[in-house]
Every structure is written in C-alpha cells, then in structure tokens.
C-alpha cells in the first residue's frame, strides 16, 4: 500500500467538497477516481499534493503522514501530478518544462552555479539527460526544442506527464489526462499508462472517458457530492446501480 486516505474532509465555506473519504492505493496498480462533475475529485488530488490543507482526516504516503505538508516537499517525497487544465510553462521549450521536474532531484544553488563547480556541471548534464529520457518515454523527443505553448493539445498533456515523471515519483497523479484527446490518442495514452505501471510506478487518475477507465484501471473509487459511494474493480463498478444512476446513466443505445 503506497497511499492511504482516511476520513479526508475539505470544506469551502458552507460547502463540504470532500466528505470523510477513505481509500487505499496499492503499489504498482492503476487506480481510477471517478464521479460526477463537482463531486470533489480534483479537490482530493489537491489535498494529496498539498495544494489544499485538509480540514480533517489523514493522508499517509509510504507510511508517512503528509496532510498539510508543502507541495514541493510532497514532490520530493515522490508524488507528482498533472493538472486538469493544462499548466505548462507556455513560453518555455518542452525540454525546459521537463527540466523543471528534474529540479527537485538536484542540489546546487546560486553560488555553485556562479562558480560552476564540478558537481554543478555534472548535475546539469545529468538533468539534461534525465529530461531527454522522459521526453523519449512519452514520445516527444523530437519536439524537445519547440515552445510548449505551440504543441498540440494532446502533446501538451503528454508533456505534462513527462514533466511529472522527471521528478522520479513513486506515485503519479493524473487529472483527466485524456481530456481533449481523440480516441486514437487515448489508446496511445493507455499504452503509456501501462508502460509506467510496468516500470514500477503507481498511477492514480481521474477520467470521464469510460473507455480508458475500464481498460486501464485495476480498481476504481467513485465519489459523489464529496462522499465515496463505491469502490471496486471496473466490472463491479460498471454493474453498481448507484454508480449507474449517479454517473454513468443508462445507455439507451448499444
């Protein structure tokens, strides 16, 4: 078990966006988090990554409690994320974007940089190589020097994943990675997710594309109005009447 949420709660004013949610994520699996719009999924992610502080409850990552810890510290510990609305550094090249991810695995400071110590030089070389590896991994090596803002939407999503991977995470959190991708691109994304899982990563993702969710996830957690309403394998969830009512709806056709 790599991540354990227990009784996680977050309120915005009078609104309880996340209401005593608990679930575990097993090591080296793909876990899906689904639910209607505004159910609180992204908020749960923001709590895990330290962007919000939980009002109640606990988040334990690899045996360590991380509720309310600074985001950058959490990244250091091994959780990386992508954002629901893409947040790349638009005016920087794809490679520089990925170098951002390398940042937390480097040490040298301003003085080292000004003096160009051997350690610093070494480290810069390592970062470049590491970043290129990630670009290669997601298939963007030939776009390394393009401005990230000029990449197509699907490629921007991939680039965000590469940046997250560059932090050497244990747990990768993806918020609607297939949003704006067509079916073909989604297929490729599923392949990528498998590749990541097989390389030892654990993936936690939010997605509304049921094709992807059913194919890629080992387990699913369903939330509605901030509360967890179901948890299980994709097959179980697909058959859960409550989930059908609240989220999936009845397919008239097919």
């Amino acid at each position, binding site marked *: 078990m790599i991540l354990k949420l227990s009784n996680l709660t977050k309120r915005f004013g009078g609104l309880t966006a996340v209401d005593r949610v608990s679930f575990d994520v097993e090591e080296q699996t793909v876990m899906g988090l689904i639910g209607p719009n505004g159910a609180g999924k*992204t908020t749960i992610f*923001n709590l895990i990554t330290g*962007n919000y502080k939980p009002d109640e409850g606990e988040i334990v990552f690899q045996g360590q409690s991380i509720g309310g810890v600074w985001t950058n510290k959490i990244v250091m510990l091994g959780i990386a994320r992508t*954002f*629901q609305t893409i947040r790349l550094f638009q005016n920087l090249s794809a490679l520089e974007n990925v170098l951002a991810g390398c940042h937390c695995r480097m040490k040298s400071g301003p003085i080292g940089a000004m003096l160009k110590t051997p350690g610093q030089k070494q480290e810069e070389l390592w970062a470049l190589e590491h970043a290129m590896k990630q670009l290669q991994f997601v298939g963007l090596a030939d776009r390394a020097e393009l401005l990230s803002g000029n990449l197509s939407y699907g490629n921007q999503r991939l680039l965000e994943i590469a940046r997250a991977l560059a932090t050497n995470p244990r747990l990768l959190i993806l918020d609607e990675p297939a949003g704006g991708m067509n079916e073909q691109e989604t297929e490729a994304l599923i392949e990528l997710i498998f590749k990541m899982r097989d390389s030892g990563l654990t993936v936690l993702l939010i997605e509304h594309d049921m094709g992807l969710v059913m194919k890629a996830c080992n387990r699913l957690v369903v939330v509605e109005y901030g509360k967890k309403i179901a948890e299980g394998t994709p097959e179980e969830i697909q058959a859960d009447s409550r989930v059908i009512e609240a989220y999936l709806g009845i397919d008239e056709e097919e």
Partner: protein
Amino acid sequence: MEEFFQQLTNGLAVGGIYALIALGYTMVYGVLKLINFAHGDLFTIGAYLGLTLLTSMSLMDSLGVFFGLLLLVLMVMGLVGLIGVLLDQIAYKPLRQSPRLSAVVSALGASIVFQNAVMLIYGARFQVYPQDILPRIVINIFGMPVPLIRIMILMASIFMMGALYFFIQRTKVGTAIRAAAEDQGAARLMGIDVNRVIMLVFLIGPALGGAAGLMVGLYYGQINFTMGWIYGLKAFTAAILGGIGNIPGAMVGGILLGVIEALGAAYISIAWKDAIAFFVLILILIFRPTGLLGERVAEKI
C-alpha cells in the same frame, strides 16, 4: 481628547481626497490590471484646467456659486476624461497583449510627459486659485469647528463611491466592464464592445482624478506641476490598502490612510508620518494579502 477628534477630522479631510483619486485608480486597474502611474498627473491636469476655466470664464459671477461650481466640475471632469481616453489610445492600447510591466513603463513615461507638459505650458512656478471662491463656512460639530468644504469633499467622495459601486456591481454595463476586465476575448463573444468599455473606463477614472484635482485646488489654493506624483502615490497606496480593483476598498483605504497619517503625525512623529503609514500598510498586507476588502479568490487548480 478634543485634539484627538480634531486630528481625526484632519485625517478624514485628507483621506477623502486620497479616496477620490484612489477610486479612479481602482477603476482603471479593475479593468486593465494596469497601474496607471499617470493617474496622479491627470489629477494635476484637473487642478490646472480648473484654474484656467475658473479665471477665464468667471463662471461664479454669471451663474452663482452653486451652478458655477457644478458646471466647472463637469467641464473639468469631461476634459480630463477625454485626455484619459486619449492617453489610453496612444500609450496603453498598443500594449494590451504584451506583458503587464510593459504597460507600467509606458504609464511611467506618460507620467513624465504629462508632468513636464504642464510645466512647459503653465510654467514651473506655483499657481494659486483665487481666494474665497467658496464661501468659508465653518460648522460646529460637537463643539468642534469644521470647515464646510471638508464635509463637502468627504460627501463628494462617498457619493462618487456609491454611484460607482452601483454602476459597476448592479448595472448591465458594469457587469460587462468586469467581464471585459477578466477576459476580453470571451467578453467579445458575449457581444460586449470591449473597446467601448475600456474607453468608458478611461473616461470615468481620469474624470474622477480630475475632479479631485479641482477640489484640491479649490480647497488648498496652491497647485504645482509635481503635485500629482505625491498624491498619485498616496492614492495608489490607498487603493492597495483597501484591495485594488475594489471600489468600496478604495474609499476605505483612502480614509484610513488619511487618518493613519494624521494620527501618526500627532502622536508619533511628523517627520516619520509617511513611514508610519507605509509600515501600517505593510502590516495590514502581511495579514490580509489582498487588502482590507480585496476578494481572495483562491485560484482553482
């Protein structure tokens, strides 16, 4: 105790003027996210235009004090508003799509131009409004003599704030202004004529600044070409203190700044008065990072 209240009214009088200038600042900022450093100089221009109109047209004699003054205020506001629109078209419009700080530099340039243009046109010497245009009436409030004009300035600020607030928050055009402030492209898609909206804002904001300039001229009598810099800075401080972009915030910030200055001068040190005011500002911002009334919209991640 009596001295305390006396100082309080001193502070309110100064604060009322800060507030009036801050309203214009906040208005422009609210739409363009532009710190219009030339706003203080539009205030100066208002003071000078007021003097010119006053001495060349002898409005008071022909129309009486009330209507003469009203007409004067309207003319100054109109003219300064037009200058504001012109300023926007020349110095800011080409920079709409560029980094925000580029427009700040353009605004600083405009400030230099205005200040020196006033100096070249009117000369570097101090100019003086004719004395006793307004009847010097002193009212007794709880046994304390308060000149009527101070009350009028405060009332004018409060009235303008109210009107502006209603306009921005409650009318359709006001909503359109706020929408254009946030996303001009999307505002266009709603059918909002963004250029018109911005023009309107650059008419109102500077007009308020001009009105404040006129009031300072009428009240204190002495004006010069550099006066806008200090007042502009103070008003900017006031706007930030209240939460920039927020109309009641500008009012609260202005009044508060005036009072802090007066009380700081009275009970701590006159020479350190501005430092005290800035210190209080910093303290307030440490605890309320978006000012007293500024909205704290958490960025949705």
